[in-house]
């Protein structure tokens, strides 16, 4: 165990014991982080960077909630407020959820498929540095003039006549830089998954998280060039005298909406599918059961992605468009509910007749399912276009999208943090703090966003810096603001947990959860070359086979679930 020669007491004796031999000590010092091409280090840099952006985006959200806590509030000026929601949305989409999933993918995909690195390690490093550059370019606009046209940048508002300052340009460069980063990363993931799987790992034995990263990559490759083209047209409109989106010169503002949402809706699945993948990995481990219907869960990922490419105009039901368009996009959106429902039913069936262990990671998974179901159901309301006419662009939509992205992607990310932290650092997070964090986040989330449905239904549009004191708007918004701070406290506790545990947590050992996939075959944290020996994969759950084989050869009992359960729960 070259990588973990700490003196802290090992609390878990895992079976099998894997030793990574003849590994050179990893170089230390900050310059080694600048030059690294190790997928694990790049993955860590991705995760840390994007989490910092998450905290920045969250702070912006809290500032907005403070402003909306009282009617006709004058705390924040309309200019600042518009900048806040623009930066918040952009940060969470482009600088947090999408690259955070790339971070998980970077760290885990090679380990899960039994590879020693990504297919193109240097390209992988470039992906990270482009992401960081995009974030810096975008946030620098704060010191000059921040963009104010919303993360959707609808034209003509984002044209140079109505947004003369350079914030929109900073946003365009962010989309280009992070887009290039994601595109290179996506190609890398695809090449890695297609070519570098362990012997015996056919497509039918690919871990479900890797399936979702594969589909995530394909969606990025299909969707990103479109938005790159769209923002380039916006850039030339703004500075080089073209009129693609200018109605007074024969251009079309609707063209922007179509191009943007042709990327923007697949983007929703780009954000949430890897979250589905995390759930599909964690649930079977803590139910001590195989995933129910592996093929259906993998296939539904592909079907969701395919249908997700065909529903973009359901964001445009209020625009002047022909009825046949609305009907097509309504029915397409309905169809997505079927594979999504299949996933949810399969997850519940995975828990069914298992022995469910309430680890923090499992709690976040369950919180994810409970919340995502609601986001999915409100999505059906929004898909019915006559009903959408009442709901679109209100706080109902704000609530819906946060149920899907915050309740979906973010709770999935937190499940992933609690589940894989021991592998990444070699230390366990505190389960007690984890539970408190989950409880606060779950309650805080629903207090914040459930009531926003009602605010929207009673006529409050989104993106307003103030609202009049009519009806119950004040009550709804006050409840929502209080919830936001509970949610923030929950997130803060996980941050403290991570900071405390990264050096001080109990040593995890290679396989603290008795998990199913190959990343648990190596030591925690894994050595630079990941595996000395790459095992032959015989099923979807290679670690179960390995444990069984070790038990047969050494006579140690490892396959009985009771024995392991006790070893799992720590002090």
């Amino acid at each position, binding site marked *: 165990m070259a990588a973990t020669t700490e003196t802290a007491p090992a609390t878990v004796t895992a079976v099998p014991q894997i030793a990574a031999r003849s590994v050179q000590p990893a170089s230390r010092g900050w310059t080694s982080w600048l030059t690294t091409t190790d997928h694990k280090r790049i993955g860590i840099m991705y995760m840390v960077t994007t989490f910092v952006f998450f905290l920045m985006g969250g702070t912006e959200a809290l500032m907005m909630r403070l402003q909306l806590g009282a009617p006709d509030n004058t705390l924040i000026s309309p200019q600042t407020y518009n900048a806040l929601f623009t930066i918040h949305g952009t940060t969470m989409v482009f600088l947090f959820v999408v690259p955070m999933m790339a971070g998980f993918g970077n760290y885990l995909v090679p380990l899960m498929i039994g590879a020693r690195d990504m297919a193109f390690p240097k390209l992988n490093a470039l992906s990270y540095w482009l992401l960081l550059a995009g974030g810096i370019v975008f946030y620098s606009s704060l010191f000059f003039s921040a963009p104010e046209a*919303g993360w959707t940048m609808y034209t003509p508002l984002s044209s140079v006549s*109505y947004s003369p300052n350079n914030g929109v340009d900073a946003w365009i460069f962010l989309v280009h830089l992070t887009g290039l980063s994601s595109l290179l990363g996506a190609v890398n993931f695809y090449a890695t998954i297609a070519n570098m799987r362990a012997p015996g790992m056919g497509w039918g034995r690919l871990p479900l998280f890797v399936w979702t990263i594969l589909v995530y990559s394909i969606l990025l490759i299909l969707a990103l060039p479109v938005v790159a083209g769209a923002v380039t047209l916006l850039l030339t409109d703004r500075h080089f005298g073209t009129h693609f989106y200018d109605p007074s010169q024969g251009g079309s503002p609707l063209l922007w909406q179509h191009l943007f949402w042709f990327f923007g809706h697949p983007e929703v699945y780009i954000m949430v599918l890897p979250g589905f993948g995390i759930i599909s990995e964690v649930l079977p481990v803590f139910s001590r*059961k195989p995933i129910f219907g592996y093929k259906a869960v993998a296939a539904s990922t592909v079907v969701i992605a395919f249908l997700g490419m065909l529903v973009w105009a359901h964001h445009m039901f209020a625009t*002047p468009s022909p009825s046949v368009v609305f009907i097509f996009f309504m029915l397409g959106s309905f169809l997505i509910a079927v594979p999504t429902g*299949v996933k949810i039913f399969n997850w519940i069936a995975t*828990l069914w007749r*298992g*022995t469910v*262990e309430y680890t923090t990671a499992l709690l976040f998974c*369950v919180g994810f399912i409970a919340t995502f179901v609601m986001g999915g159901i409100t999505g059906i309301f929004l898909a019915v276009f006559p009903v959408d006419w009442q709901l679109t662009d209100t706080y109902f939509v704000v609530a819906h999208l946060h149920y899907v992205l915050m309740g979906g992607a973010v709770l999935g990310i937190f499940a992933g943090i609690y589940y894989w932290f021991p592998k990444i650092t070699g230390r366990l997070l505190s389960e007690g703090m984890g539970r408190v964090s989950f409880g606060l986040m779950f309650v805080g989330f629903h207090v914040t966003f459930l009531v926003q449905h009602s605010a929207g239904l009673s006529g409050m549009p989104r993106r307003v810096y103030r609202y009049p004191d009519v009806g119950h708007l004040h009550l709804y918004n006050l409840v929502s603001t209080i919830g936001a701070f509970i949610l923030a406290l929950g997130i803060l506790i996980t941050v403290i947990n991570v900071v405390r545990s990264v050096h001080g947590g109990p040593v995890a050992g290679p396989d603290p959860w008795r998990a199913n996939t190959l990343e648990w075959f190596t030591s925690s944290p894994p050595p630079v070359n990941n595996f000395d020996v790459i095992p032959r994969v015989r099923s979807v759950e290679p670690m179960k086979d390995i444990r069984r084989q070790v038990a047969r050869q050494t006579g140690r009992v490892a396959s009985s679930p009771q024995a392991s359960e006790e070893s799992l729960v720590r002090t």
Partner: protein
Amino acid sequence: MRRKPLLLTLIAAAIVALLALAGPASADLLSPESGGSPNADRIDSLYWVIFAIALVVFIGVESALLYSLIKFRARRNAVPAQIRGNTRLEVGWTVGAALILVALAVVTFAKLGGIRTPDNSGADGLKLANGVLVASSPTRRLPPNGKSLNVCVNGQQYIWRYTYQSDCSRNDFKAPFAYYEMVVPVETTVTLDITGQDVAHSWWIPKLGGKFDAIPGYVNHTWFKIPADQAGHVFHGQCAELCGRNHADMAAAVRALTPSQFEAWLAQQKRDIAAADAAAQQQRKEFEGTGKGSATGGGR
């Protein structure tokens, strides 16, 4: 495990919170605004059908989740069943989910006509004898009898302008207009031609139906018909598409009057506009006569 009481407490707390909110709040807690126009009412009733189906699905899924969490939590000597799937069951719930959506689609299509196609004006509505106010364009949906009061809605940063005119593509400088508050007769089908002047806006009076984006270069259409008992009532709304810094302050209102009051208001509005035009013309003449300004100096 001590998880069960905590979960139950959470659920109880959620229900109590919901009830506490349900007390003061009324219809706006759970459904869109309605009551000002038949299309808004029909959207509301379609919403409730979806709500009923959604509630059943929601309760079903969440209770299955909760049940499996409580019932199958890890106990000493419990052995997890190593089930890998069940094709029949999986096909069953796939088809089941699809059938629910087919039902939703059928209900939506059944209600669609009444929401999109304007009703005929009521017998007590404005007598649409004046040809100027009868919409006749074949490009938009009209009531079955082809008669409606047409208003051209124009969104501008940060105010709404309404022109009472049957053909909005024509610049009729004589047509009466108003800002912020649209005045309409009750029991009369009002069709709207909606466009934006500068950036994209969105027309929305919640009680009178859904949102319709006002996008420069495009014309959007909707309609409403305010019932007779709402005469004298003012319906409030605001721009629903981000249109700049003062987006939140871009309010709109629709005042409902009886047809005779409306005719009187329209006549007064025409007189006021004519008088203001005449006064402006007079002022310009005087201004130019004094020689203080050039011919272009009077513009701004």
